């Protein structure tokens, strides 16, 4: 660029004015800045999202420390493999409710009886997702007193007898 001037000095060929055309070393910074910005956005995004969210759980200790609960304060929720929620209070008959109503139901129940203790039972053939969903609804409904238990045969019989 600096060396070749093809159609350049026409009328005034004194040689003095030529010096104007001298160009210094010019580096095109655009690609470098492009890459820098790309990396910048990459690192910014990865740093922000690196730590996943968690849900904290406090479960009662092992079963050898029995907690006495009045039957009337005990709410049992059973999630079957299809994701349907069966519930009963104490020894009442089981009832079925769709999962979407769980939050409202839990809010009502805990308002009606603040001493309520909930036992969540998820069927072994169910999904881990159902447990997380139920616990999430509990969090949203501010239900903090609950425990987890396995589904036993008596529960299965009750579920079969449940009214819909």
């Amino acid at each position, binding site marked *: 660029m600096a060396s070749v001037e093809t159609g350049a000095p026409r009328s005034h060929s004194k040689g003095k004015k030529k010096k104007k055309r001298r160009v210094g070393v010019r580096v095109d910074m655009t690609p470098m800045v492009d890459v820098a910005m790309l990396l910048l956005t990459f690192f910014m995004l990865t740093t922000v999202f690196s730590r996943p969210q968690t849900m904290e*759980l406090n479960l009662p200790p092992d079963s050898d420390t029995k907690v006495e609960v009045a039957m009337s304060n005990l709410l049992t929720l059973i999630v079957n493999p299809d994701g349907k929620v069966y519930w009963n209070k104490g020894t009442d008959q089981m009832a079925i409710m769709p999962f979407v109503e769980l939050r409202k139901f839990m809010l009502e129940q805990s308002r009606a009886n603040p001493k309520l203790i909930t036992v969540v039972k998820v069927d072994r053939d169910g999904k881990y997702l159902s447990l997380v969903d139920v616990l999430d609804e509990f969090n949203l409904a501010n239900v903090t007193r609950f425990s987890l238990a396995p589904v036993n045969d008596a529960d299965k019989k009750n579920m079969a007898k449940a009214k819909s």
Partner: protein
Amino acid sequence: MPKHKKSRVGIKLDMTPLVDVAFLLLTFFMLTTQFKPPEEVSVDIPASHSAIKLPEADVMLVTVNKEGKIYLGIDSPRMMERLFGEANRLKNAVQVDKNQLGNLLIQARISNPKLRTVLKGDKNSPYGPVEDVLDVFQKARITRFNMVTDLEKG
């Protein structure tokens, strides 16, 4: 036609400060980023509304994958070596049997009582193995633990 339009000057913006700042931020983020080590187990995390962050250090991670296999990982290589031997020093999770899990958890917590227990289950994992793990937690007197979830919107 006029031959020389050369003298026309476009808008010139001095990009130097911008580039300076960009590089400053770039170096900052490069230095502060901790890359996630390659995952031994791939897990599709369920979503919840909880916004509690995973603790940064002293984490004991029990993973249950889609097939219901159980993996245990601790974030310090020294602990991994102590529990699983030299070969597994740099792995971040090792498959374990549910019968061994209790002992491993207790050993780990004896050598580092500050360890927080974290359960990371796959969305589609069957509940059976998860129930076993929760049972083991209860037997090992781990009554407080975290479950890894994604943040659900809405």
